[in-house]
Every structure is written in C-alpha cells, then in structure tokens.
C-alpha cells in the first residue's frame, strides 16, 4: 500500500514535469495572444486580465498571413491526397509480398530520410529553380509528398498486415480482383489506421518549415514561414506572432481527439450503404 502510494507520487511527479515542460510554452503563447499590448511586458507577469481578440483580427486581416494560411491548407491537403494515392497501393502490395527484400528496401529509404534535411536544400533549390517551380505550391507539395510517402508506406503496410489474410482470400474467391479486394475489403478494414496515417502526414506537412522557407518567397509562402513576418528586425510583434502560432495549432488540436475516436470504431458505414441497394 505504502509502496503503491510512493509509486503514484513518483508517476505524478514525472508526468507533471513533462506536462510543465511541454505545455507551458503553449499556454504562454495562448495567453500572450489574448493579452493587451500593455499587459505583455508587465512585471510580475499576469495571465490574462482582459482577453482581447485584437491580434487575431489583425492577422486575419493581414493579407500576407491569411494567404499563407490558405497556402498551408492547400499544400497540406494536396500532400495528403497525393501521398495516400501513392502509398496505399504501394503499402498494400508490400504487405502482400512473399519476399522480405522489398521491406528491407523500405527500411533503407527510411534511413535515408533520417539524413539532415539541410543536405537536400541546396540541390532541391537548384533543381526547382531550373524547372521554374521555385515559389510555387507545386514544389512544396512535391517535396512534402516525396518525404511523406516512405513513412506512409511504412505505417500503412503495418496496418494492411493486420487485415486477416483469410478475409482477403474470401474476397478473391467471392469474385474480387486484387484491386477490388484492396478497395472494397482491405481499405475499409484498415480504415482507422489509414486515417491516423493521413493525420500524421497532414501534421508533418503543416508544420514543415525548412523547405517552405527555402523554396518559397511570397506567392507560395506557408503559415509556418509567414509567422516570421511578425518577427522582423524592427522588433517583434509578440501578440500577432503568438496569435499566428495558436492558429497553426488549431487543426492539430482538432485532429487529435478524432484519431482517438476512429480507433474505437473501426467500421465503415459508407461502404455498407454503397453495397446495399
């Protein structure tokens, strides 16, 4: 009993330390984004005395930032669609390979991915300049997709591995082609894993900074880079920068509970409706 209590206290202490370390910057940013400019540098610091949306309205009105936000949405969504279109069939295929050679190749690709992104920046910049794609969303979508696909295949093939082979065999005897087995049976069964992977890809693309910084200037700038607008040489506009960061956080906060929800309900109702009448 006593030892249990000790363990619990230890557990809470460790968790609290982690939570403090990880959440306090977020809370600080959130409170800064809601503060009046006068409150911002008060000492001793205050949390928020009178919440104000002025920074949010200001950055939404800011053409530069709102178009960057739209760029981010377009780039991230396109990256998801393209990545999924490429990696779902590939992962399904790899999951059904008899030989493990392909899986080892995938490990190699993932290992290459571990190289510092800096290595890629200059060659990719030169390449995209050559094909006149610098400062276009297409360049960012291509780069993000290229980096996301190996990871997505890696995750998705594990999810396809979990689909019972007998169910796929039943479909093949029932009259499904390999493509139909994938679309009508395996994808719906692996649906929750596929959505979780898509969300991870989205988050990766949404937060991607280095390539967005180097491959874009104005037209295709994403929100992650546009935040820098509020940190110019003349002095940082802390309120706007904080509000921009909070806006960047919104889709992630929205998706996390969603991932949990789909874990609980692995069935696909839409498919069911489709087969019936």
């Amino acid at each position, binding site marked *: 009993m006593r030892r249990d209590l000790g363990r619990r206290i230890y557990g809470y202490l460790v968790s609290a330390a982690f939570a403090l370390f990880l959440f306090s910057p977020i809370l600080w940013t959130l409170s800064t984004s809601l503060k009046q400019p006068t409150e911002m540098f008060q000492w001793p610091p205050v949390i928020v005395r009178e919440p104000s949306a002025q920074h949010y309205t200001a950055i939404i009105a800011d053409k530069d930032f709102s178009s960057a936000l739209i760029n981010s949405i377009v780039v991230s969504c396109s990256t998801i669609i393209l990545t999924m279109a490429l990696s779902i069939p590939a992962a399904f295929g790899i999951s059904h390979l008899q030989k493990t050679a392909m899986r080892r190749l995938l490990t190699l690709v993932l290992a290459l991915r571990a190289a510092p992104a800096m290595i890629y920046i200059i060659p990719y910049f030169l390449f995209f300049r050559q094909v006149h794609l610098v400062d276009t969303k297409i360049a960012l979508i291509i780069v993000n997709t290229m980096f996301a696909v190996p990871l997505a295949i890696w995750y998705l093939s594990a999810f396809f591995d979990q689909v*019972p082979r*007998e*169910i796929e*065999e*039943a*479909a*093949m*005897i*029932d*009259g*499904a*082609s390999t493509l*139909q087995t994938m679309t*009508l*049976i395996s994808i*719906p*069964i692996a*649906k929750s894993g596929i959505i979780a992977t898509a969300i991870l890809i989205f988050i990766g693309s949404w937060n991607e900074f280095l390539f967005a910084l180097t491959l874009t200037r104005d037209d295709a700038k994403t929100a992650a880079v546009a935040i820098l607008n509020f940190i110019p040489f003349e002095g940082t506009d802390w309120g706007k920068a904080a509000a921009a960061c909070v806006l960047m956080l919104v889709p992630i906060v929205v998706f996390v509970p969603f991932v949990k929800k789909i874990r609980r309900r*692995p*069935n*696909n109702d839409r*498919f*069911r*409706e*489709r*087969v*019936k*009448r």
Partner: protein
Amino acid sequence: MAALDLHIDDIGKRFGAIDVLRGICLRVAAGEFVTLLGPSGCGKSTLLRIIAGLERADQGHVRAGGRGLDAVAPKDRDLAFVFQSYALYPHLSVHDNIAAPLVMRELSSLERLPVIGALLPGAIQRKRSIQERVRQTSGLLKLDALLERRPSALSGGQRQRVALGRAMVRKPKIFLMDEPLANLDAALRIHTRGEIARLHKEMETTTIFVTHDQAEAAALSDRVAVIFGGELRQVAAPADLYREPVDLDVARFLAQPFLNELAVAAPIGGGLMIGGSRIIIRDALGSGLAGTLAFRPEHATLAEKDHPGALPVRVTRIEHAGIDAHVFVDAEAGAQFVARISAERARSLRDGDNLGLTIDAERAWFFPSNGSRQRGDHSGTV
C-alpha cells in the same frame, strides 16, 4: 444443379525444405461429398487451398469438369470456400456479407455507387435479383432476423451460417470447407453437421470438407480421404474405412479413443504369440513378417478365465461410458488391452478380476512392419 467432378492429379507442394504434400491423386465424382481427414499439419488444408487456387502446387494438376484449373484465378474456378475462421467481412452487415459475391460479380464499380448506380440501365433489375437471392439464402439458413447486424454482433453459430450463406448464394459448382465446425461448441457442431448434410442433399454440390474429427468425417461423407504426413493413405466410404484401415496410422486415427496394439513376431499360419498363448487372426494368414496386432475395443470380449482360446487377463480399471464400458486389462508379458462391453456386464466386474480375453479373429488386423495390409482400397477412384 449441375455439379462438377474434380480430378486431383499427382499434387505436390513444398514449403521450404518440407514436403507438405506428395503425389496426391484423388477423383471426386460430381455431387459427391468427400472429406479430407488427418491430424493437424498433415497437409489437408494446403490441398484444399490448392484446389481453391489460393496456393500454387509445385507439381500436379487440378481439373474440374474436365477443365484444367491450374492457371485459373480463384474467382473464376466456380467454387466457394468456407474458412475455419469464417472470414466474414467485418465492416459489412450480414446481408451485405451474403450479397458480396453477387455484388462483386454482377455489378460494375459504377453500379455499386449509391446514387449514380441506380440511374444506370439494368442496374435496378440486377440489384433486385441480388436482393431476391440473398433473401432466399438467408431464409434457408434462418438468418432473416439478423440481416442488418454486423458479424461482431453474432454468435459463433450464426457467423458460421453467414459464412455458409455467402458460399451458397451464388450456387457454386464445388464447395470447399476448411474445418468449418472447429470453432463451435460440441452440441452446435453436431447440429450444424446435420445442417450441412441437409444442404448438401438439397443442392447436390460437389463438396470437399476438411476436418481432423473422424466422427465428423464419418457422419457427413460419401467417402473419406485419409492424409498423413502429406500422403494420401486411403480413400474409402466411412464404413469401409472403419472395417479395413490400410495401415496402422489410419487404424489409430479412426479408432479414437482407444485402439489395442501389440507388437508381435512373424505369424506362423496366421497364429500370433501373445505371451504363452497363440491366437489365430485371419488377417495374419499368409504373412511372414513381424508386425503389429491391432483390434478395436469392441472387437474383443471378456469371458471366463479358462475359456478356450482366450488370453488370461486381469482387470485393472473400468470406465463407464453410457451404454457401454471400457474395461482395461493386463495380459501376460506386460501387454495391456481395452475391451468394450455392455455397461450391464461391466457392473459385475471388479478391479483385479481374472478373466479371459477373446479377440474377434475375423475383425482384428495384422499390420506387417513393412507398411500396408494386403487388403483395402487405396486406388482413390470412384
């Protein structure tokens, strides 16, 4: 309905260094119910998967109704497969599970779409015909009340019936069933066994049924094919298999729970020596090799100690089993036997009683050490 005959010709399959199947030849007549019987790991399921096209044989051919199937995709073989795990589609209702083979075969991917599908010419009639057949099948299997449920909301027996329904609905020419009853409890297994027999009688579809349960095999089959270690040992009607097992493995497998076995020296004129007694076994006539005497408990009786031709034995244990009882006895030279006698008779026996054991000389078997008995059908033809 037109059923197809099935010819399995010299099938061989290796997994790595292991020969899973060796030279399997089997002919199944149209409409026949044949069981592949054997212990787990004997290759019977692999053979079934080769017939279905889910596994490729390393050698040999499968033909159905004269058509070579080796290069044919599973879906084009006109057969249905019932898996031990049922392999129902977890994301589809019972209705859609049963409809799936029809939907996949008869509707194009456009016609499967919810709104556009209904606008395509002919799609409505086709969908109605699918509905009709699903309803017929679910009626036959008493699944009408469950059509809207997901497999996860069904009991094992209900899932089993859905799996049967999905297999039956498109009226295949051949049924393949891989231990479909193994996951059911005992009472339900016997009930479902009866259902399968009834459905086979109604539909007269050629059926290959895999099991390791000899009682199931005997109850259902026209013929039983016994497989051991990747080899087809014997193909015979259940009654013949019971009477004339071709070798000791088959005899053992079909004599559960007990088979009396005793290693004996080469018989002389059909006479075998057990301790100091000599008994004549018809099966041993003409054989000059050492081997094994085997007989079922029901082919031995207990008599008085000094009964002529009886082995002197001592009762060690009596196991009552309803109408019968198994009496375990010790004979000379450390031999142990089991006799099955009526429970009535067993009540008068006590442990330690000295009695005489008489073996039915017509029905006992002698398996020479070089393998098969002389008799028994091993040809595999109808």
